[in-house]
Structures are given as C-alpha cells and as structure tokens.
C-alpha cells in the first residue's frame, strides 16, 4: 500500500508539484485568472489540476516562532481514500483500486456519468469540459509501474510531499508531530492518517500534517463517504415505505 504524507510545515508554496504534475500528465492550463486569493491563482483541485497549493494568511503566529503572522501553505491532492466514495459510486467499473492501493480512473472505460463527482467528500474528482470524462490524480500510476516516484513528490524540494509505504509514512508522520510539539508547535496534528481518526473515509492514503482547523485549508472537518450511509438510507427508505403502506392501508381499511 503506497501513498503520500504531505507535511504542510515543510511546504514553501513553490508549486513545483503543480507544475511537475501538469508536465508529466500533460494537463492543460486552467486559464489565466488573477484570483486575489493570496498567491493561489488556480483555485482548487479539478480535472486539469491534480495537485493544488493553497495559501492561508493568518494574523496569528505559528507555535514556536516569534513572528506575529503566519502564512500556511498546503499542497492538496486526491486522498486515495481507504474507502473511496468515487469508486463505490462508479457504475461502469471505470474507477478501480490498483495494486498500489491508489484509486484510479480508467479513462477508456469512464463514460462521464459524473456519479463519482458528487460521491467525493473532498470535491476532488471533476469532469473535463471538452470530453466530459472524470479526471483526477492517478498517483502517477504509470510512473509507479516503472518503479518511479510520483512526479510531485519527486520535485518537492523540501520533502513536504513524501511518497512511500503507508505503514512507514504513518510512523514517520507521528514522530514528526511529536517533534513539532517538542519545538513548541503544539497545534500540529495529522489529518486522515488512520481509520480511527477519520472513520468516514476509513483513513486516507494521502494524509496530511496540518496546523490549523481543516476548514482553513479548504478540507472538510469530518468527511464521510456517501456510500457509507447506504445502509441507513435503505433502512430509512424501507421504514418510509412501510409507513406509507401502513398509512395507505389504514386509509383504505378505516371506514
């Protein structure tokens, strides 16, 4: 099982990951729009942006520093959830779990129905305007097959994006949190590192070290895969059907 550990305390916001990803995967640009959102002009993950760096300017210091201001940067990516909503929602079988544990959309099978788009609790999967198919990070499946590191992790100059074996990454990440706590950055914590802390997704194969609430980074605080609620939905629906039937019966039977 492979994945990413993205340590946002090491991110310098250089966007090398965004460019390396686009270059390797030959993705088109998103248009040339000045957004005014700090240094972020690509906005969010989408069909043509599979790595995206967000910038958060805060008038509060980061623990352990003497500055009165802080600027958080985070390279966001598909989380390759242990329980992937997109995969479970896909009616054609285009989305599969690969031998590396990643979630992969097979472009030759995808029919562009878009069910996966609404099934992703992170808003990662997106359909492309021109061909209508769904696209997202592949964890560089083609590179992994050739025993190469995914392009983004390969180009990250500071080791903010770390690729590797998930078990090892989790150990590394936990000790990094302890290290940061010892340095006075008490706010550091892991997001989605295991099923226990994020039952809604069963844990993320691409998890993060954050220093503020998830919402600050445009991440949901408690993501839940929609299919996780299937049983409850069906039960509710059943109960509703039974109730309706009872009401109908009552209406007919009662004189």
């Amino acid at each position, binding site marked *: 099982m492979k994945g990413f550990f993205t340590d946002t305390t*090491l991110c*310098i*916001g*250089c*966007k*090398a990951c*965004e*460019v390396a990803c*686009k*270059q390797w995967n030959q993705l*088109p*640009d*998103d*248009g*040339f*729009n*000045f*957004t*005014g959102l*700090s*240094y972020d*002009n*690509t906005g969010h993950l989408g069909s043509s942006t599979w790595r995206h760096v967000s910038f958060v*300017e805060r*008038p509060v210091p980061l623990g*352990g*520093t*003497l*500055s009165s*201001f*802080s*600027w*958080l*940067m985070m390279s966001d990516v598909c989380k390759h959830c242990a329980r992937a909503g997109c995969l479970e929602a896909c009616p054609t079988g285009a989305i599969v779990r690969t031998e590396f544990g990643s979630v992969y959309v097979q472009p030759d099978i995808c029919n562009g129905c878009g069910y996966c788009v609404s099934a992703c609790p992170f808003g990662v999967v997106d359909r492309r305007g021109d061909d209508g198919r769904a696209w997202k990070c592949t964890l560089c499946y083609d590179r992994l097959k050739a025993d190469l590191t995914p392009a983004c992790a390969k180009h990250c*100059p*500071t*080791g903010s994006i770390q690729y590797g074996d998930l078990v090892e990454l989790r150990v590394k990440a936990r000790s990094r949190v302890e290290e940061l706590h010892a340095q006075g950055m008490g706010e550091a914590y892991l997001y989605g590192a295991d099923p226990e802390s994020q039952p809604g997704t069963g844990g993320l194969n691409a998890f993060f070290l954050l220093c503020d609430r998830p919402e600050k980074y445009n991440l949901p605080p408690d993501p839940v895969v929609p299919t996780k609620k299937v049983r409850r939905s069906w039960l509710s629906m059943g109960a509703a059907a039974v109730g309706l039937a009872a009401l109908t019966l009552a209406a007919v039977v009662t004189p």
Partner: protein
Amino acid sequence: MPGLGISFGRGGATTFQQDLKNADVIVIQGSNMAECHPVGFQWVMEAKARGAKIVHVDPRFTRTSAMADLYVPLRAGTDIAFLGGIIRYILENDRAFKEYVVNYTNAPVIVSDDYADPEDLEGFFSGWDAASGEYDTETWKYADVGDMPAAGHKEVVPKGVPPKVRGLDITHRKSDPSLQHPRCVYQILRKHFARYTPEAVADICGVSPEKFLKVCEWLCENSGPDRTGAFCYAVGWTQHTVGVQYIRSAAIIQLLLGNIGRPGGGIMALRGHASIQGSTDIPTLFNLLPGYLPMPHANHDNLSEYLRINSAGAGFWSEYPAYFVSLMKSWFGEAATEETDWGFRWLPAISGDHSHMTTVADMAQGKLRGYFVIGENPVVGSSNGAYHREGLRKLEWLVVRDFALTETAEFWRTAPEIASGEIRPEEIGTEVFFFPAATHTEKDGSFTNTQRMLQWHHKAVEPPGDCRSDLQFTYELGKRLRELYADSTIDRDRPIRALTWDYPELKPGEPDAEAVLAEINGRDLVTGKPLQKYAQLKRDGSTACGCWIYAGVYANGVNQAARRKPAREQHWVAPDWGWAWPDNRRILYNRASAAPDGKPWSERKRYVWWDEEAQKWTGYDNPDFIADRPPAYRPILGAAGLDAISGVDPFILQIDGKGWLYAPAGLLDGPLPTHYEPEESVVENLLYRQQCNPRRLEWHTSSNPYHRAFADPRFSCVLTTYRVTEHHTAGGMSRWLSWLSELMPEMFCEVSPELAGKRGLVHGGWATISTARGDIECRVLVTRRLSPLRVRGRTVHQIGVPYHWGYTGRVRGDSSNDLLAFVADPNVHIQESKALTADIRPGRRGRVRRAAVHGFPARPELGPPRDIVGLRPFKQQPLQHDPAKE
C-alpha cells in the same frame, strides 16, 4: 562581486548550499530564498530540522518569512543601519570570536594617522575631493606601508603607474594584538559604528529593539569554536547605490564572529540565474577579463605597466603575470610571444565607464550603432525600460537571441508608446535581427551555479527549427569575421587573425563544447597535457589557460564538471559531484576552520586541519592553503610573493592574508560600510548630514528625472521590486509557458490594509503606481504580509511590485522597472531597484501611458539637497566620454 572579493579575496560565495545544514543560525536578508532559490532552500529547512534558528529580514513577509523562526520587517534600503547595529552590538558587548579575529582578520592592524571617519566628517571619509567628486584613498592605507592592491575589485585603476609592484612592503605593517591601539582597525570599527545603536536602528529601519536584539543575540550565541552561523543574500542587497557596502557589512559581522571558512558559516551569495556566477567568472562585463583579471586601461602604456599595476607584492595575486600570460597564450596561441608582449596590445583598452546604463544613455544620444542582446531582456529587466527603448530606437541594428520574441525584440512593434500611437514603427530606423536560441536541454554546456560549482548538461534533444546554441552563434560569427579580415595586413586587425578559433565540430557548424571547456582549463604547452590546478600556471608562456580559476575543471583530460556521483555514495561535502572553482574547493578560506595551531576549533566544527605526521593540510575538503605550509610558519620581514603568506593567513589571495574588516584599498566609496539613504527616500539620513552615498552615479536627463531626496509630497510611499517563484526574471523563460503563467497570470502589487484604506485601493481591483519616470497599472493584492512601519515618528507605507511582466508573451502586464531611475552604485554600476519612492492611486492608467521619455517629465523638484552643498560636483553623466582620449 567586490563586496566579497574585497573582504576575503575572491568574488564568490564562501560556502555551498549543502553546508547550510550545518549552521546553528541562518540570517536571510536581501534575499527571498524560499521563492527564488527553492531547491537550495531545502538545506535551510534541513538546518531548521536540526535545530538551527532561521531569521528573515525583509520589507515583506514572504514565503521565506513563513519558514523562519523570526521575521523582521524593515524599511527597504536601510540594511546597512541594521547590520551596522549588529556590528556595534558585537563590539560593545565584547562578543567577537577574539582568537579568530586577532589571527585571521586585519583587526589588529594600525591604520594611517591621516585616516578620518564619517563620524567626524559628516558622512564623508577622509580624502574626499569636492572638485572631482571622488575619493583619494591615500589616507585609508595601513600605517607604515605604501600603496597596496586589493585582491577583489582589481579593475579599479589607481592613478598613475607605481614605480614597482605594490604591496612588497606588506610585512612592515604594524599590529596591536591586544586590539587596544586607538588607530587599530578594531578601535576604528568601534568608533565608526558607535552611532548604530538599537535606538538608531529602530528609528532608521523601523525595527523594534526587541526583534533587533533577538537577532544579535541569536547570532552571537551561535558563533564561536563550537557553533557557526551563516548569512544568505541576493540582489535585495546588491541593487542599491551602496550595494557593495551592504555585503561588506555582512562580511564584517561574519569575520568578527569567526564564521568564514568554517562549516555552517560563511556568506552564501545567491545568484539570480543559472549561470550568473559563470558570467562574472568568464565575464560579460566591460572591465574584466576571465578570472577577474582587469581589462587593460588606456592609461597603461605597455605590458609591464599593466602587470605592475595588477600584481600584488604578496599572496596569490603575486602570480598575476602567470594568469595573464597563460590567458594570452590560450587566446592567441603561437602568435603570443614575448616579442609581441604576449598580445597585450591586441586587447582593447578601456578609457572609462562602459557599463550597462552608461551604454544605454549613450545609445539614447545616438552614440552607438549596433547592440547584441543575448539571453537578456533589458527592456523589462533593467531600470527605466522606456529609456532603454528610446536607446534602441536610435540604433542602426539590434541582434536579439532568445527563445521567444521578447519585449526587447518587439520594442518597435508592440511597446506601449507604439500601441498609443506616440511613435510609429515606420519612424524607427533600427534593423532588428532575431535569432531563435536553443535551450539548455538542446545543447551541451556547463552552468556555474551560485556556489561556484560547474555542472555539465548534455544535450537531450535536438533544438527545433532554426534554433541554435549560443556557442554555435558565437563560433560562426567569429569564423566569418576572420574570413573578412583574412587578407588584412593592418596591425589593428592582427588580434582577429591571431585568435585561436579552431574547435572540432560535432556536426557542421556546431563546435564541441567540451573542447571549449578543455581550452578554458588550459594545458601545458610543452607536454600538451591538461593542467591539474592553477598553481601550475607559468609566466614564461609555457602554459595556456582560458580562465585561471577554472584550471583543473578538465584535469586528467576528464570533464570534471560532468561528474555525477550521488551524495549517498560519498561523504557529505560530495566533492565528486560537478567541480567547483578554485581547485574543487567547496568552502573557501577553509584554513580558518582550524585554530592558529592547525587543530580544529572544535570536534563539532572539524573541517580542514594540519596533519602533523604527514606535514600537510588535510580534511573533508581540498585545503585552501599552501598544502605543506605549517601553521607555525612566519614570513621574514620583507618577504614577498607566496613566501609572505604566514601559517595563519587563511585568505591567501589577500595581500596580507587576512580577512578585511577594514578595506584600505579597492573600494570607491569608503573603507567601511556607512548608512546612506537611497537616492529617493521618505526620510532624511538620521546618522549624517550627507543624505546619499556621495560617490553614487547619476544620469541627469529629461528621460530620467529624480524625486526629491526625501519627503517628496508627490511620492510618499517606499517601493521595492522583486521576483516570485512562478516566473523567471524578465519573463522570457516563463511568460510563454501556460503552466507557469496560470500560477501568476497578472502583474500585481502588494499593499497593506492600512495603505489600501488610506488610498481607497480595492483588493483584486486595479491600481496605478507612479514615479517621475512614468506610470504602470496592476492588480491589487491587499495583504497583512505588508505592514506600515514607524520611522522617526512617522508612518511609512511600503509597496511591493514584482517585475516579471511586459507587453509580449502569453500573459502580459506593465513592467515595474519602467518606474525606476538610472542611478547606480559606483563600484559595480548596479541599478538601485530595491528602494525608491512612488505614489499609488486606485484605478487604471490612461490609454496613453505617462512616461518621462515621451515628454511627460515631472516638474524638476529641487527640494532638500542629497549632498552637503558644495561638496559634490554636478555631473550630467557618471563619465563624459572624451572621444579624443578614446
């Protein structure tokens, strides 16, 4: 880089980026390292992970500040006051690394009785000549020693020709190792920096004393035998009218704290492009030959005069004739003989300033016929772009070699004054030749990176279409010139005919880049073998070498720059990756990593040491010293040349072997850094009556108007320019690429919420920024990363503008450098782009863009003088060319 060259002997970073991880404190100032050198910044992050303190001092909170333990905002253009404050703190609190300072710097040396300090002369050093506006450096000398040459910045030509090589009497200098003598350098320093108190720093820079003292304390507590600290700087320090002195200030701090030549120490000069270090080593500068050898000057009548002026009585510059003669042998081959003065007379002799800005000003006056622009986009990248275009319009021909039709190539077609109809293309007589260039992946060659390391790149793909390498272009140009002059018998054409110009061609027209590297490395002309190191160079014409500091890059006939042994297969210094000049040394002056007795200062900072048994220097790096000279060696009185280098002289290029806290020669604007306000400032100089560097260079023309010296009511904000990660300098390598352009699509400015509120600027809206030179428009980014500063009781607002955009390319915008004036540092003629004054107002500019060049000159503002009245002559231009003399 005379700032480093004067202080230590060589104009290059004293250390390498990988070594930053060994630092215990890193001060990044005048650089936005995380954004502009993101790959090298990993070593700062590594240091941080190991527990080092990271300090970032900058007018803006940048991505570098976001990674720092302490961010210190300061007013742009006041770094000397800040650094001078640190120097004072070290001296007054007795925090210097005494044993290092006494042995390895010129702190104990007694200075001439005639020297007088700005402390007593209202901001001037002794020797100022009000008539010429220049310093006579006579009074700055060491006591009891005659005129002596500086190791760095040798291109400064002394007046007159000395009767013999200068500095032969260097061993006669007087010293006071107790540092108590009132005229010793240490005490002069104390007096000079006495005014730079924490309160003065607060008042000038707008830095709170708490933050300032924290920086001082972190620096001091992380220096000494067991700990080291490093400084990183870039053009945020150099591009000022006192740029060289900024770097000198850092050099003084690092020498006082004993941080030069030691692991985790040093001054990391971060160069702006992939091979900018290379382009000063083998220069594209008007006054230097390869290896920092000065160009012959019209004042030098013959070779012996030239050699006498440039040789030093002691240290490795005493071998100057060997470096020069070998260069001539490399260029002119057999034709360079003792009888022909090795071809000395064939070199052009310069008679004055032919630097970039002077050339453009000359161009605007119609004095130039043609201009080559290769790998540069000066219309966007240099100050006062409109003035540049005025110059280009007056040329007969212009050659541009680039990847795309840059603004410089398109100045006649899409420039703002063309778009507005002020100038019509048919009125421009300049013939423009555009040559598409091959990128580095499409050709073989080397980069000399920021840490003096050459790394070879092999051609990966063929260049498309008509794109060709610069090497091919230059080689072909040379071949055709030689054909034109082949039959000439005129003496002045001799150099072109005598030039060695016979590189093997890999395919027709494409010369072998490795053959050029081999030529630069040089060879022994007797055996024909490649040189191994520069110490082998001879002055009798038996060696040829294209650049003496690069000797060894092709040692054993192997391209050493192409070595790529991974770091994990060698020790941390990684000497088998690429090749660094000189002699593959990664930390310069590393003799200083050992105590005077030759033993490491501490186990933790062990690097190079004296091996008593083998009787030679050894260590992790190539020792930067005479290999077998014992630490106990002392020269006899009157010793000269290499014999004068004592066992405790780590700075072997310096005439006295010491790090120069005080520069007795070589600089044009003073032996010590002094705080002057930028050409255009918001406040008067708090420390001296003299407002600006009296030696600065100005260009007085209607196309280049200046603001008031300070407090100009029309231009009340401080403006600073910079780069962002997403773009490359003037945009030639990024604005044509969609993946980079989408990340930073539009020209913008950064302002604080306070300034936005005051001026009615709307976040995401438009603003127009003005100076007397012109207007630009840009989008507004209101951010808390900029904050107003309190300076002398006043609130100072700063505006930040990146300079990447222009009028061609995939994403376009106004060029912020159109706001800048021509004004320069005297030592290196660099523009002042990092601190000026400007005005900002909401909304877009008019369709016809206001520019001084096109008859919109601002009213000349007399205002308060920049100079003490009567002490500085008015010069229209830095140097009036006298055609008779040329």
